[in-house]
């Protein structure tokens, strides 16, 4: 990414990805030497249904400027319905973090299948760009200083 364009802001982005789809796609992307944003850190979980909202809140609390959850396309979940659970949690969690003063665009969910390596690049880059334009996350706890 063009360093001058980022104004020096290097976002921390956590991508929590499913072992059976996005992780394989990201691996393929790597083998094919596709270049994607260096600010995305991948955390592999066995299923997007494993993503506890606490993990997302934890990531935000410990320095993530954006959190991306990636799972299998609807109907393709290795465990049948883990991604559906992930989706429902995501919708409710998005509403909740918004209420807590965090821009809801900082949390995104995408379906990327094992064969969609180019989409990994596309999604990671577009999310990184969005987070970069949003700037560093300001946590609610810092919003008012406690004396």
């Amino acid at each position: 990414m063009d360093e001058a364009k980022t104004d020096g802001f290097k976002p921390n982005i956590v991508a929590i990805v499913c072992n059976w789809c996005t992780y394989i796609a990201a691996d393929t992307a790597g083998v094919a030497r596709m270049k994607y944003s260096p600010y995305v850190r991948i955390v592999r979980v066995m299923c997007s249904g494993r993503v506890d909202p606490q993990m997302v809140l934890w990531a935000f609390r410990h320095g993530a400027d954006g959190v991306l959850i990636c799972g299998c396309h609807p109907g393709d979940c290795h465990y049948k319905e883990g991604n559906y659970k992930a989706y429902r949690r995501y919708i409710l969690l998005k509403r909740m973090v918004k209420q807590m003063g965090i821009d809801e665009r900082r949390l995104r969910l995408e379906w990327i299948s094992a064969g969609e390596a180019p989409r990994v690049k596309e999604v990671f880059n577009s999310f990184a760009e969005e987070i970069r334009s949003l700037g560093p996350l300001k946590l609610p706890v810092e919003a008012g200083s406690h004396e």
Partner: protein
Amino acid sequence: MSEGKPKIALYWCASCGGCEEAVVDLAEDLLKIAEKVDIVFWPVAIDAKKEDLEKLRDGEILVSFINGAIRLSEHEEMVKLLRRKSKLIVAYGSCSYMGGILSLANLYPREEILRYVAMEAPTVENPGETMFKEKTMINGVELELPRFLEKARPLDEIVEVDYYIPGCPPTPQVTLKAIETLLSGNLPPRGSVIGASDKSLCNECPLNSTKPEKLLVKKYKRLTHAEIDPEKCLLAQGIPCLGPVTRGGCNALCIKAGMPCTGCFGPLDGVVDYGGKAVSYLASILDVPPEKDAVLKALEGLPDPVGYLYKYSLAKSLLFRKRAER
């Protein structure tokens, strides 16, 4: 006062007084406790002043029970004094433990809260726009008010806390059990929640037997819009009851009164963020297709997720707590 009995103190910070009421609700049991201890400081019930507290040796008090969140500079000062004078500090009740209902105010900046209370609330008439002041001169005398702090804080963000007693307010049984634990000398590990259960509320809920094998909810209902069958698991009826993620020990008082659990006993051990855990299970038991509109429609009964899921614990949430210990 005899020298031999252990000394205890009780204090309130930003609280509604319900926790004090809960202590009084011990009724005859309070007399039994009073036989075993000397209550040296309890602003609600006995006439001991701050000066009396200052006269005590450091660590002379065995246990101080402190309820309420920390919202004023006065609270901060008093709990620091009590910490110095006490061997053990117990956070008593949800406000002291997790920030409580009044920590929902942490969603708003301090100035906005003060302006609303002083000028904008519908019940206020303040044409001169008089604002709260920490120092006021009246007839040549300077009067002082404590400072309203930026945020409401749980007790353990101000001083070290040894034990927590949950509840809004803690029930007499929980209080009694906790006091017995403390006086027994057989103390649990520091930082434990005492007096309550270490299993979820569902475990002791009388409606647990009516819970279906697989809980599926088509749509959450708002309490105000629902007809509740008090004999059937509330979650199965679509009422967002927080029992599954809430610590038990209250004997399901709210459920017995036909109301869902709202989570005043706080999270179970091992949970780092109560609201996050609540989001997790409330969303996972929804039985709707994975489409945005369908999910949002099913969640219409939860119009205020923060207010509902962090009702007692916003100040302790991952995004609002001051210390993010691992």
